[in-house]
């Protein structure tokens, strides 16, 4: 039997859900792989939802909203873009970014809805089943995805995503605008840092380790690991447990 992907769709109530209904009224046929969750606005889609779906082995997630400028809630779809970009950047670390998509479908575009869903279904068919969909779970991949999810949940990244439009599109009290390019660099660095920090936390959750152990396990330079450990210590997320052979051993002290 050929591979039939499982696809989850988040449709905004005012444009895309209406567009999907119009496809029905017009009897425009598209592949039956998608299951729809209705939300009032594409801006409602929390990065957490996408990660949860992927962790469950769902093969693809598509979010559809109103065209830019047409949002029922004025600007919710612009916020949806920012959240989507964050998830996309994070997922690209595991080459999974093609499993998600954001599209604009208006209430009058029944045809376009069918086209978008057909195209995305084909894309997922070409990619093949999610590496997390089978019975034999790739636990290492799952742990990495978990670290990405935790990064997306972190205060720092959520605050950056929430403030991005204000920082890069509006002037501050001195009439200055923060350049988009500069923000992107800062954002990318933050994404990278939070990902590694959460991988460290997950690793330390299993058993306490030294910087050297972590460097070997995660294949990252030990100096960089040490910097992250210092940040995590500052956040009260790790603590030194012991010193063995002159090497400090750290453990995860987060409450879960």
């Amino acid at each position: 039997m050929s591979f039939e992907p499982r696809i989850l769709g988040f449709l905004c109530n005012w444009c895309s859900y209406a567009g999907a209904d119009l496809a029905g009224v017009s009897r425009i046929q598209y592949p039956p792989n998608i299951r729809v969750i209705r939300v009032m606005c594409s801006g409602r889609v929390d990065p957490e939802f996408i990660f949860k779906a992927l962790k469950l082995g769902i093969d693809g997630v598509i979010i559809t909203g109103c065209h830019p400028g047409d949002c029922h809630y004025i600007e919710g779809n612009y916020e949806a873009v920012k959240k989507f970009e964050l998830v996309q950047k994070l997922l690209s670390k595991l080459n999974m970014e093609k499993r998600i998509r954001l599209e604009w479908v208006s209430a009058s575009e029944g045809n376009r809805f069918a086209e978008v869903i057909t195209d995305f279904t084909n894309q997922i068919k070409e990619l093949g089943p999610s590496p997390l969909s089978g019975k034999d779970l790739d636990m290492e991949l799952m742990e990495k995805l978990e670290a990405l999810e935790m990064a997306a949940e972190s205060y720092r990244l959520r605050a950056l995503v929430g403030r991005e439009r204000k920082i890069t599109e509006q002037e501050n009290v001195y009439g200055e605008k923060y350049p988009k390019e500069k923000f992107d660099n800062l954002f990318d660095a933050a994404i990278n840092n939070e990902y590694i920090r959460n991988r460290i936390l997950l690793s330390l959750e299993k058993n306490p380790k030294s910087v050297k152990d972590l460097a070997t396990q995660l294949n990252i330079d030990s100096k960089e690991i040490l910097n992250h450990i210092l940040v995590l210590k500052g956040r009260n997320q790790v603590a030194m447990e012991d010193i063995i052979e002159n090497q400090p051993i750290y453990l995860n002290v987060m409450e879960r």
Partner: protein
Amino acid sequence: MTEKQDEDIRIGIFVCHCGTNIGGFVDCEQLAEYATTLPNVAHSEHNLYTCSETGLAAIRNAVKEHNLNRVVVASCTPRTHEPLFRDCVQEVGLNPYLFNFVNIRDQCTWVHMKETDAAFEKAKDLIKMGSAKAAKLEALERIVVDINPIALIIGGGISGMNTAISLSKQGFKTHLVEKEDKLGGRLKSLYKLFPNDQEASAFLEDMTKKVEASKNLTVYTSSKIKSIEGFIGNYNVEIEQNGDIISLNVGAIIVAVGASVFEPTNLFGYDGEKSITQLELENKLKNNEVDANNIVMIQCVGARNEERVYCSSICCMTALKNALIIKEFNPDAHVTILFRDIYTPGIQYEQYFKKARKAGVLFIKYTLEKLPLVDKNEIKVFNEYLGEEILIPYDLLVLSTPLIANNDNSDLAQMLKVPLEENNFFLEAHVKLRPIDFATDGIYICGSAKWPVDITESTTQGLAAASRASRILSHETIEVESSTAYLPEWNKSLCKGCEVCITICPYNAIIKNEDDEIEIIQALCKGCGTCGSTCTKHAIEIKHFNNEQIMAEIIAFGGKIIE
């Protein structure tokens, strides 16, 4: 209505055949049977038409008989039928928000007509997801706000005056605010009106008398809006008049600020004497100052180009009207109109165009690529129809310039929290379905503030705005959306006060209150949920679309989470 929350969850699922629309493609009986295997489902059945009186009675009976506290209907689409089923469950004592809709027609059987097996599997999944969400639904109280039956109209032009007269006639206390010292707006500077050549001043005088005679109507001239705060039924507005501040509380606001005229500086030799605008021509006509014999008009000056892509829609008729007036005064005058396209919609306006042609007005088409060149005494224009350049002598050149958005539109838009479109005109809620409303409840739009319109259309829109506003003002209270964002008591300690939610809320519904705590004003919130997905600490929840409910849907489809 929260007592049901503590009981065991008992879901009833109703699968609709919708005649053959659903039943013709998937086995509804089997779907209903499948539904009984789902967690918390106490009853399931299938109906030929769940929305029929028989179907609704079946729901009511089942709720009573099986003591159901959640109802799921799998049928067409919530966009058309959710209100019906919500009312139905409310009749038997259930909170309407304890109802959930599953769309297995518009988004399933109708779009997978040739893959019925797959459609059946999809319908099963959708019912499973819908049922999982239903189990997590919470009763919500409908939010009711009081309506102060007073209207505020911003702008005393022709549309604003019409709105004011109509509303005060209906008995509503009305405030009309005009920034200039007299009412009338653009109408003040016009000579005659098309298509019946009525004197603009007489028309305006008549309107002004009606305004003055209106009871309950207060006019504020030379006044500006300073601030607007509040929500439907309860807007607090401050007006500045000659340095004094006047505070008003109103239930509805109508934006009728009109538009400005584009000044064609550096275009086609514009100097205000030999090369003038249509508006300046009207003034000359009024004072009988036109003594030219060769008159040329150029249409679309500064419009429908890269800078201003839109058609101002009133200039063609204005040019025709003024050309005819000139011809009437002086039948020997040569009037030539250089146009790109002539826009005269409707039979009446088209006849006006024919009348102009009959009167001997010449029409020459030019294109954006080959603009007419204006010399001291003649105009060089490439005639599209002849395919060659011709010279036209002139002693008066009239430029038809577009109406443009007022430059203070953005200030007002910010105060009202309503959007502007790309040319800075005000943007309505829906171009066809809600042309007079804003997406924000209790605020309406009419006249040229939205788009350049003529007197007839301004009048119509003014009356339409009065009608829309009276729908609200005639009620003592109004129910507003209950599925709003809120900060639950138990989440308050999570909030770090980062204020990101305040930044992204498009309705300014989130504030920091006197206790320095985040507060969400329920009547302002529209429930988009963006703050919930942005909140850095996951403290804000979205009623009816909360994390737990959406997560339940995801898990129902995906399977169990492996932690």
